[in-house]
Every structure is written in C-alpha cells, then in structure tokens.
C-alpha cells in the first residue's frame, strides 16, 4: 500500500467524520430567518406589511405613522408595501415581516401561522361590509343577479369584501363569476375598483365599504360617479396580525402602541386620517363568518 493510499484512506475517514459532524451541527442549529433573526429574537428593524388593496397612495401618511410607532415601540419601523395580499402573506409566513395589515380572508387561511394583534374599530365596531357598486347612471341594477353578461371588477383574489363575498353570493345559486359575467378582472386595490366602475371600464364591482365611505370624504367627485346597489352583512374588519413566534415584548409593545393611538394627539390625528375610531383586541372567532364563506366557496 503506498503512502498516498494510506493517507487517502485516513483522510477519507476523517473527512467523512467531519462531514457528519458538520451536518449534525447544521441540523441542530436553531432556525434563523434571512436576516439572521431567530424566532423570539427582537429584530433590528420592525417590518410592517401593507398593501394598496387597503392603503393606496398614502406615502405621506405611512411616513407619519412610522414616526409615531417608532416613538412608541422604541424600534426602527419599516413599512413594506407589496401589490397584493398574497405577497404580504407570503412574506409573513417566511418571517420576512413582523406584522402586517391584511384582510380577514388571508388571516383565516393561515391562522395557524399568524397571531391576531388588533382589529380596527369602524363606526364603533370591529366590523365592515362589502358594497356592490355600479356606475351612477345605471339605475336598472338592483342586485348582483342583474349583472349577467357584464364586466365585473374585483379588488384582490384574497380580499373578503372585494372577491370572496360576491363570489359566495353567486355560488348560493351554483354560479361562478367566470360563467356569469362576460369578463372579470382584479384591480389590486379597492380604490381602483371604484375608479374602474366610475370610468365604466367595469359595469360593476365589489369594494370594501369602509374604503368607499372613506373615499366619499376624501374624493367625493370619484365616489359620486358610482352608486351602491347593495351592502353585505357585516364581517370582521381587516386585522393587524403578527407572524408566529414573534418576540413577546415586541408584540405587546406594538399592540399597546395601536390600542393607545386614541389617547395621544398624534395618534388621534392618524386615526382621523384613516377614518377609523381606534384599534381593539378581538378574538379570532370574529372572523368565523369569513372562514365559513371560504369553506363553502370553490375556487377554479
């Protein structure tokens, strides 16, 4: 046996042992997120996900809210904006966000992986409605069932008020939107559903009632071009959620900052801009109706 062969065999053995040790070490290491952050560890930057489904074109407002939250929770805050609920939910599930303001529908879909932080209060309750709207000149439409063969605008595939509710309404008669309407499309923001209907690009649309009401205050000339045909029953208002495993101190601090917004002048001003009364703590059962809808309605 040559020296080379002896050495090869020796090092092969050592190499194999080393490999096993390294693999074992890697497998036993705690799960660390992309930013080197472990579950339960306080992040350097607190990332809060928002979407234009809800908060559209509100850069100045988000800057003010960021400043307010940073003062309260004593952490750097970064608002992360993405185009859809799906993208924000994915980021939450991958621990790339700490908190997010999402719709009740994605919350119930992933409630095992998300924790409810708080629910806004609107008109005194943590509830809102889905509005069916048509262009102002359309006096004929009295319900969604008058819209066969028309063009319909949804907001987001994961929106309760902007998609799930009208879909469920049709499904009660065994109808799918794809077969009922001539064409459907998503605008990716509730405000844009109103724009689509106001411009008559769509013959009708489903919109978050809170957004329609708020636009009525800030952009009445837009809302005046539409007419509310019907309003749904009330559902749990889109909640603020946290990813599972978030640091408890951070969670409590952030939750308190939201709940106490109506106790500080800057917070009150921000709530006024949002057109909500404040934030509240609610049970996940508040979204039971949305969960029931989601289970009933098939998706192609």
């Amino acid at each position, binding site marked *: 046996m040559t020296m080379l062969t002896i050495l090869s065999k020796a090092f092969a053995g050592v190499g194999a042992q080393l490999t096993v040790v390294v693999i074992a070490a890697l497998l036993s290491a705690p799960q660390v997120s992309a930013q080197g952050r472990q579950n339960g560890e306080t992040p350097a930057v607190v990332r809060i996900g928002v979407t234009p489904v809800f908060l559209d074109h509100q850069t100045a407002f988000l800057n003010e809210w960021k400043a307010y939250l940073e003062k309260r929770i004593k952490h750097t805050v970064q608002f992360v904006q993405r185009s859809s609920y799906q993208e924000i939910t994915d980021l939450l599930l991958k621990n790339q966000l700490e908190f997010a303001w999402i719709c009740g529908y994605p919350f119930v879909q992933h409630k095992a992986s998300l924790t409810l932080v708080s629910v806004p209060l609107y008109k005194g309750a943590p509830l809102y409605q889905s509005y069916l709207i048509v262009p102002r000149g359309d006096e004929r439409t009295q319900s969604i069932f008058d819209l066969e063969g028309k063009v319909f605008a949804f907001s987001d595939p994961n929106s309760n008020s902007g998609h799930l509710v009208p879909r469920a309404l049709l499904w009660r008669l065994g109808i799918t939107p794809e077969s009922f309407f*001539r*064409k459907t*499309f998503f605008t990716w923001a509730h405000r844009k559903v109103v724009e689509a209907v106001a*411009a008559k*690009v769509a013959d009708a649309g489903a919109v978050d009632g809170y957004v329609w009401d708020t636009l009525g205050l800030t952009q009445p000339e837009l809302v005046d071009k539409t007419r509310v045909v019907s309003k749904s029953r009330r559902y749990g208002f889109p909640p603020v959620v946290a990813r599972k495993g978030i640091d408890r101190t951070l969670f409590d601090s952030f939750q308190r900052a939201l709940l106490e917004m109506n106790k500080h002048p800057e917070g009150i001003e921000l709530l006024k801009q949002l057109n909500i009364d404040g934030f509240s703590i609610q049970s996940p059962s508040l979204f039971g109706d949305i969960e029931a809808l989601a289970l009933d309605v098939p998706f192609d």
Partner: protein
Amino acid sequence: MRNLSLRYKVPLRVGILILIVAVVVTTSLIARSYLIFKKDLVVSSENIALVTARTVRAPMLRNDVWTVYEIINAPFEVESGAGALQADAVIVLDDMNHVFVSTRPTAYPIDIDPFENNGDLGALKDKIIGAGQHSGTVTATAGSGDLYVMTPIISDGVILGRILMRYPDTVYTTRFASITKQAVYTTMIIVALLLPVGWYWGQRLAEPLVLSRRLFR
C-alpha cells in the same frame, strides 16, 4: 395704368412684385409645413404606439386588464397643452380581435367586436388585422379623416393583440390652422415693412427715368 407716371408706376410694380413673392413663398412654406407636420405626426404616433405595445405586453400576458387600462389611460390624465399631439382613443385588442380594454369603455366595451357597426373601423378591419403579420405598424386614414395607428403586441413571436390609436382629423386642422395663421401674420408684417421700402426705392429708381423723359420731350 399706361398713362401713369413712371414716378408711380415703378414703385407700384415693385410693390406688386413684393406681394406676389410674399404670397408664393408663404404658400409654399405652408404647404411644406403641412407635409412635414403630417409626416412627423405619423412618425410620432407610430413611436408612441410601439412604446405602448411594449409596455402593455407583460400585463397582457397576465391577462391584467386594469394595469393595461392604467397604462393606456395615463396620457389622458395629464393635461396637455393646446395643439399637443394626443390620440383621442386607445383601444387594445386581444388575440381574437375583441376589445381587451380601451380608454373609451362606453364606445368600446370590453370583449366586444369593435368592427361591428363601426364605419371607420369596419372599413379598416383588414388593415388592422393585417398589422403584425409581418410585425409592422400600420397607419391609415379613415373615411372620417381620423388617423389610425395600429401596432401588434408581440411576445416571443406570438401576437397577443393589437394597439389601435385614433387621432382625430382636428389634430391636423387645429395645428394647420395655427401654422397658417402664424405664417400669414408674419408675411403681413414683412410686407408691411417691405412695401414702404420698396416704394421708396422704386421712386429713387424712377427719378432719373422721369428726368430723362422730361429732358427728351
């Protein structure tokens, strides 16, 4: 005119010559401006159509109606200056030549056949559908005088649809009227300056002739 003294005849002829030259030059400049303007309009509108076709390609692949609408409608949300080159309608057709979305949703609703019951588009249907077979932009003037620019939307060699941009004939007439008005005013000012000068030089030119006539009478 024959019995008119040279003292007046010469400057008068100079004046008439100035007027004739001014009218001829102005007319030829206006005609040339019109042709250049029309050519520029076609080239500009073709460029705009090509850029728009490329921009809407990605959302069309995703069947994203609203994003395509926002893209084609964006120029209409910005107030343009008087006489600016702007289409008054943009229609995006899908691969079945139905309306995918348009900036005039009442006239061209989604998913309808835009060629039915539409004189202009009906007449240009073959040209419109022909646009893109050889990956080209087609420009055509309809019976109404409106200019249509048609460009295919192509992804990986596959035609996803077509962009139709309509420029009303008032784009010509408004700009042309403006150019003509400016040219006429400028000519009038120049003629107003040249006529007295011409009269003076004409008289100066005629003076020795008048003198020599007197001498030889």
